[in-house]
């Protein structure tokens, strides 16, 4: 019970902090919006079927915008040494990780909902499959992304120039997840897909594997 209280405490503190400091959220949202507008102008809808290629572009934007936000989730804890204070507290350290993971997950979901809504307008997306199926896919991919993104953010927090190496370390491991995400989104926007789709199973496996591993590895990631 105390474990979940610490999770809720870290989540509440971080959420409030993010809403007040605004800089991480604003930069990510702005980057995502600008990228989408640029893509909308750069791609000619009479020559390119955006319903086919647009899903890949969307996930590319989410990858970069998400890393902007998540990369700062532990780095900001080093500004006044609060990471040190968190590690010094007598709570289970993985609860700190889970609290941070949830903040990143909520942020990514908000970003994706806004981005998807804008994509329907700017990229002229047409919907073929069920909304629920698309939502499940996007949530599953986002869980995997947030799990790994939060762990790597903790890893680089105390490293000088960590924000530079963050995407270099993170992106290669995310390749299978994002290929699956783009493929499934593309299917959802065209022919549809079944629940037994192999890409969907890959996403599920990725989530279970990397979330579990991250919870256990967090203690070592933050230790010297």
């Amino acid at each position, binding site marked *: 019970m*105390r474990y979940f*209280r*610490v999770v809720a*405490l870290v989540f509440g*503190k971080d959420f*409030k*902090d993010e809403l*007040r*400091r605004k800089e991480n959220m604003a930069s990510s949202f702005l980057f995502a919006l600008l990228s989408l507008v640029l893509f909308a102008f750069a791609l000619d809808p009479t020559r390119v079927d955006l319903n086919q290629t647009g899903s890949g572009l969307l996930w590319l934007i989410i990858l970069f915008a998400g890393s902007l936000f998540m990369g700062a989730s532990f780095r900001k804890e080093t*500004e*006044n*040494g*609060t990471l*040190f*204070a*968190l*590690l*010094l*507290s*007598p*709570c289970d350290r993985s609860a700190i990780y889970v609290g941070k993971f949830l903040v990143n997950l909520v942020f990514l979901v908000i970003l994706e909902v806004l981005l998807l809504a804008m994509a329907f307008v700017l990229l002229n997306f047409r919907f073929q499959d069920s909304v629920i199926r698309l939502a499940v896919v996007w949530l599953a991919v986002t869980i995997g992304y947030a799990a790994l993104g939060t762990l790597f953010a903790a890893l680089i927090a105390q490293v000088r120039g960590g924000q530079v190496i963050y995407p270099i370390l993170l992106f290669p491991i995310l390749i299978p997840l994002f290929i699956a995400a783009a493929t499934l989104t593309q299917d959802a926007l065209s022919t549809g897909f079944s629940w037994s789709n192999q890409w969907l199973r890959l996403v599920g496996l990725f989530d279970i594997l990397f979330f579990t591993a991250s919870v256990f590895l967090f203690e070592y990631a933050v*230790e*010297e």
Partner: protein
Amino acid sequence: MAEIPPILSIKGLSKRFGHVRVLEDVSLDVHVGELLLLLGPNGAGKTTLTRILTTLTRAGRGTFLFRGESVTEKNRGALRREIGYISHQTFLYAHLTAAENLSFYGRLYGVHELDVRIGTMLERVGLAGVADRQVGTFSRGMQQRLSLARVLLTDPSILILDEPYTGLDPEGSRTLTKLLAGLKTESRAVLMITHDLEDCLEVADRIAVLHKGRIALDTPAEGLTLESARRQYFQATTGERVS
């Protein structure tokens, strides 16, 4: 003081990072009711020793006892609960208010009757009037006082202060010294790590000097003047006698 068993005790402690020897055969006892001043030049190993004492870094060799028991994976949590740590960094969230900061840390440590305790602590450090102001708007001195309230909130039996005077103006230093003097009367041990003898000699009970990873001096502070303490420090760190 010697009859009281130490709350923290390290014996023959060594630590290396790769080929670099940071601490070598360090032995030090910290007793309840005393303020131990740990001095040393840059690179002496003070930060590493602090990280070991706060359980954030594992010792390489030697014994580390807390209340007479060896510190292991199992009781590290219990030790963390008993430690209050203040450094030149404030450990405060700039975008949260003073009360929100204390509330967060209080809940993290499971402090009972938290609201009452927060009020008492803010009163004690003279910040009750600015409880609802964001910490980012505070002066350095106010932040350091709130930092002290943060650790006292959990009522730790070991207080470790790592360069707490850094960045404080003379008025802020005087206020902090007054607050620290008050802590000694309570049943807790205080370990202060600093470069600056001037601010803290008057409140110290014992002085230890760490030099090149070894304890070069461990002596009672009673009877020491600022000048004689400086002389001893100089002698311990250079090996030269000063008349």
